[in-house]
C-alpha cells in the first residue's frame, strides 16, 4: 500500500483457522464460532481465549472483527465520527 486510495482499492480478508482448518472471511463480515472451537483470526487467538464471552454455546462477533477485537483486548477508547 502506498496511500489511502491504494488501501481502498485493495480487497482485504480475514484468515481464519478453526480447529486446524483454514478459511477466509470478509474484513467486515460478522463471525460466529462454537465456543468449543479453537480459533485464530489473522494469527490472533480468539478461542479459547475469549470463550467467556460466548452465550448459549456460541461466540458471536456482530461488528467488524478489528473493532470488536479493539474492545475485547483492552485497547481503550475507540472514537467514532459524530457528524457524518
Amino acid at each position, binding site marked *: *500500500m502506498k*496511500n489511502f486510495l491504494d*488501501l481502498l482499492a485493495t480487497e482485504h480478508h480475514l484468515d481464519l483457522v478453526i480447529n486446524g482448518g483454514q478459511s477466509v472471511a470478509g*474484513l467486515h463480515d460478522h463471525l460466529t464460532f462454537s465456543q468449543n472451537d479453537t480459533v485464530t483470526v489473522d494469527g490472533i487467538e480468539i478461542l479459547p481465549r475469549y470463550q467467556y464471552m460466548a452465550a448459549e454455546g456460541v461466540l458471536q462477533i456482530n461488528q467488524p472483527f478489528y473493532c470488536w477485537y479493539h474492545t475485547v483486548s483492552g485497547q481503550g*477508547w475507540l*472514537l467514532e465520527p*459524530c*457528524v457524518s
Partner: protein
Amino acid sequence: MRIGNAGNLEYCRWANEQDPKLSENIRDITPVDFFQKSMVPIRAALLDGEALPRCGECYQMEQHHKVSGRQKQLLKVGVRLEHFEKTLASSPWVKEFARGGTTDELPQDWQIELGNYCNSACVFCLPEFSSKLAMEHRQLGLIAQLPPPSWTDDPDLVDRFIDTLTQSPHIQYLHFIGGETVITPAFKTILSALVSSGMNRTVAIGFTTNLTVWRDDIEELLVQFASVHLGMSLESFDAINDYVRWPVTLPTMNQQLNRWTTLARKHNWYITLRTTPTVLSLSRLLTVYDYAWDQGISVESCNFLNRPEFMRPAVLPLEYRQQELNRMNAWIAQHSTDLSHSKIVNIRDPNVFQQQLVQDLQSYVAYLEAESDQSWRWPDLVQYLKKLETRRGNSILNYLPEYEELFRSAGY
C-alpha cells in the same frame, strides 16, 4: 489537537516543537476553523503516505520500540501498526478518511497547554514551560526577554476556547499541562466551566502535576469528573530529584505523591508517574520503576528528550552508558512478566502495568544501545549547570559523585 502556551494551534499533541510564530494562533483563527480547514493539507499528506517532518520524534520513539504518540492516537481510531492495512480499513473513520482530509467533525481529543506559570525550575525545562526558570534565565543573561504571555492570560481567549469545548458534545479526552496546572488560574476556570455545562459527566480529563502543591478548590472540581487521568512528575526517588526538579525536595515530593495517590485511588482515577529521563537522572531512574512495580502504577514519558540537547540521555559517554545498560537489563531480568502478547500500545491499561513497565524500560535500553555518543555536548552541560548553581547554591557533584571525573574533564 493541541493549543500551545502561546495560543498556537497544532495538528497533534506530539508534533515536534516549532517556533509558535510559525503556527496559526487562537488570536487569529477559531479552533474549529483550524481543525476543519487549516488541517486539511496535513490530513491529505498523511493519507497520501507522507512522513511529515514534524512527526520525527514519534518515528524516533518507534525506532527504539517506545510507544509513540502517533501509535497512541492511531489506536484511538482503531488503527494499529500491526495489521495496519486491515485495521485502517476496519476503522469507524474509514469513510471520513476517504474525504481526502476534509471534515465537518469537531475535535474529540485535546492537549491544552495552559502557559508557563510554574513554581518549579527543573534543570531540563525551558523558559517557555516554566516562569520560574524564565526569570532565572533572564537574571543569568541566558535570555534577553521573557517568553510572550500565555493565551490563558487573556480572559476573552479562555472564554472563546471554553465555548469551543462546550459546543463540541463528543469530546472524549482533555489533557492539561502547564507550567504547573494546579496553580494556573485557567485550569480552574476551564474545569469550572466543564462542570457547569455538565461535560464533567462524559469527558475524561488528564493533567500533570509537579508534586509541589495542593489546592482544595481544585480537588473539589476534579472529584466531580467521571474519569480523571493523573500524571505525577518525578525523576527519581534518589536525592538527584532535588537537583533535577529544583527546588522541590524529596520529603515534599513524597508527601504530595502520597496525598495525590490516596485521592486518586479513592476516586478510581488512572494514575501514572511521568518522567523526563536526562543524562543527569538516568543512573537513578530505576528507583522510579521499583516504586511503580510495587505500587501497581505505570511510568510514562512523552518522548526521548531532545531539548536542551546537552541534557539528552545520549550525552552520557559510552563507557558510563554501559553501566546503566547493565543495570537496566538486570532489572528487566529480575522482573519477569508475561511478554508473550503483542506490543502494548494502550499503555494506560492498568491490567498490564507490569508488562508496560518492562516494555518502557526496554525502550531506554534500545535507545542507549542505538543512539550515537553525544558526549561532545558535555562541556555545554557543565557550562549551563555552573551558571544555574551560582544562583541555586548547589553542586551536581554532591548528587552524582561517580561522574566527578567526567564533570571535571569538561570544565567543572
